[in-house]
């Protein structure tokens, strides 16, 4: 049994420790917001946080998350109040939406570490997340907007 803390809730799962965290989150815990896109850390659709750091859950053995704090898109905010979510709505970022959980989880680490990201910072933070619909220009704008929201205290 592996003990996991996901979005501030305790779980105990009976899986092979080598199983990718992605499938444990999706199938054992039942949180489907984290997506499968490539299975080899190429696309970023599966991005979650372990102790606040982004990881590609499709290549992360569940054993690595044992005893750590896992946060998924469902745990980002209960009510769409996170500045990134507000900015994503304001800029109408998603098209198909499949990659957006991962995009937002990557952007969250960026803004935590750099409250005023430049274009080049956004490139450095976001180039691991593929969007086949091509929402990159809007993701860029939304990250800037979220940074402004945070600076002005407009969102928690």
């Amino acid at each position, binding site marked *: 049994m592996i003990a996991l803390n996901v979005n501030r809730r305790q779980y105990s799962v009976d899986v*092979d420790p080598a199983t990718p965290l992605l499938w444990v989150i999706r199938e054992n815990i039942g*949180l489907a917001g984290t*997506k499968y896109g490539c299975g080899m850390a190429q696309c970023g659709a599966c991005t979650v946080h372990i102790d606040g750091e982004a990881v590609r859950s499709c290549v992360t053995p569940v054993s690595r998350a044992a005893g750590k704090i896992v946060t998924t898109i469902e745990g980002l905010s209960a009510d769409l109040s996170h500045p990134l979510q507000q900015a994503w709505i304001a800029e109408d970022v998603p098209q198909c939406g499949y990659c*957006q959980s991962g995009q937002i989880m990557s952007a969250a680490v960026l803004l935590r570490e750099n409250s005023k990201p430049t274009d080049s910072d956004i490139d450095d933070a976001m180039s691991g997340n*593929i*969007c*086949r619909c091509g*929402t*990159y220009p809007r993701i860029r704008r939304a990250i800037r907007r979220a940074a402004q929201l945070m600076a002005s205290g407009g969102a928690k």
Partner: protein
Amino acid sequence: MNIATGMRRRDFFKAGAALGGGLLISFYLPELSGTSETDRAKETFAPNAFIRIGTDDSVTIIVNKAEMGQGVYTSMPMLIAEELEADWSRIRVESAPVDPAYNHAVFGIQMTGGSTSVNSEWERLRKAGAMARMMLIAAAAQTWNVNAQSCRAESGYVIHAASNRRLSFGALADSAVKMEPPKEVVLKDPKDYKLIGKPTHRLDTPSKINGTAQFGLDVRIPGMLTAVLARPPVFGAKAVRINDEKAKSVPGVAAVVSVRAGVAVVASGFWPAKLGRDALDIVWEEGPNATLSTASLREQYANLAKTPGAVARKDGDPTQTLASAAKQVTAEYEVPYLAHAMMEPLNCLVDLRSDRCEIWTGTQFQTVDRAAAAAVAGLKPEQVQIHTTLLGGGFGRRANPVSDFVVEAVEVAKAVGAPVKVIWTREDDIRGGWYRPMWYDRLAAGLDAAGNPVAWTHTIVGQSILAGTMFESVMVKNGIDGSSVEGAAELPYAIPNVLVDLHSPKVGVPVQWWRSVGHSHTGFVVESFLDELAHTAGKDPYEFRRALLAHQPRYLGVLELAASKAKWGAPLPGGRARGIAVHFSFDSYVAQVAEASVADDGTVRVHRVVCAVDCGRVVNPDTVVAQMEGGIIFGLTAALKGEITLERGRVQQRNFHDYPMLRMNEAPDIEVYIVPSTEHPTGVGEPGVPAVAPAVANAIFAATGKRVRRLPVRASDLRKA
């Protein structure tokens, strides 16, 4: 698949009829056949198949189009809400069940594709909204015992201003049910639009940023198993010997079953299913496709391109004029097979019982899938219900002519006797075929002494998408698959002598429509070659196009808008150069100007793309902009990176490391400008794609003097010697 093209529109009607889909006239508002899940509580006012108004004031719009990113879960409700005068904040969206009521208003089957959703629903959904509004007003008028003419609807209420009374739609739902549906509806004057034409936030965004949006891959039902298939290494190969001992010993693996598509490992979840699949030991009989290679196909195609094909268009005497022209230009162009690579890999969940079958999947092709599933299940189509989930991208792949991803899932479920979700790995998806065809084109043109083109010949070689499908009989005419020559046969330039002909070799690689279909290749070829002619004539490529499009006002409109916004002709910094292209597809006109630079090592950087689009009247301008942005990124990925190749019958690519996508650090700045128009609304999902590759290739030529005639662009061809 341009629906404005009369011929093809009729053809699709026939195709629909052939599929057993009922024919609908746009202005007929269908009612449900009565057996579906939307046949709900009696207190609900459901005046037609698209609207349900609850006594709690909820307004549910049933959308018959698959939401794959193109914004139909917002644009379709906008059409209805505009005429219904609903409170936009109360609108909820539900995906339509499979029912003839939801057939494509033009194509006659239930499907999403061809950039036709707004184009084809423009009249019908506004009328659906107006009809409901009139019934609500009639109910209120009766309640108040006043003349309906003295009442109006606004933001979810019917209002009688004279007596200062109002009733909400919910309060009127019960009595509206009893009203006689109006025989005729009057639609709003466009100047009174409150929603249409205004940038409107997408209704599906909140669910897509908090993890609640449900894609096919996310659906779970009790007792469900998960399957991953070992698929043939060569198209059409058959498993002749299967050793599944190791696969079955993987904890969690429940069964190994053979289906036509391959060998399925069925397990408690994806991971054991995948481990089991990887542990299978299969001997394949590879069949005739085992010798396929890109190199030999190129050679074959190049030879074919030198011979005359089936004639798709002939004006004047192109051959003779060409021979006697003052200057001749010839060139060969080629583009590779491309995979759709939607972010959500294909998947399909099937719950098959003795008397019914329920399917959950993200599909663009409900009528076709249902018929195919029913045939495999041994049921009638009416016994099969498809729940269309959100699609994590479609781009055409989820409208498969043989319903491949649905049929195999039904077969697996049938073999296992339990609900099963088949999940494709990314490798399965990239290697699974149904590609945009590989194309090889040979062009020649003659210029007169003044540099004006007088003859144009264009021979196209590539597989037909429609051949061998149920659409062939009605959509392939005289050896011409319209989708093979679209964008080439309707060459808009004022050239008096034109020949466009086609070879459609049969190759064992499954091919399919891929965002913008034939235009994805003809846009590149035609607009690049035209650029060659401009340079040969010593003319500015923009002015050259303008002169040849003098009689094409809507082409000119986008061309001039894009050029002026891009400041065509103004100096650019640091090795950058501009390229321009204009293309008509899906009844919309798009011009793009790309700014690119080429590093010494041949690496191309696209800095900026300016896009002008004329898609008639616009429903949601923000969606038009988003679709152009997305189309440009999609087209750039193909132009700069995309390539599926074959060796010994095997696809050489398998995941995003060797079939790469454009990433954030490579995405250009994109500006989109919309030409104001009161014409009928036309497509936006695909028309953003075709112009970007030639705009970039033409910019590369302007920057380096090197002509890109083969995609993807290769740094090795552009490296400084």
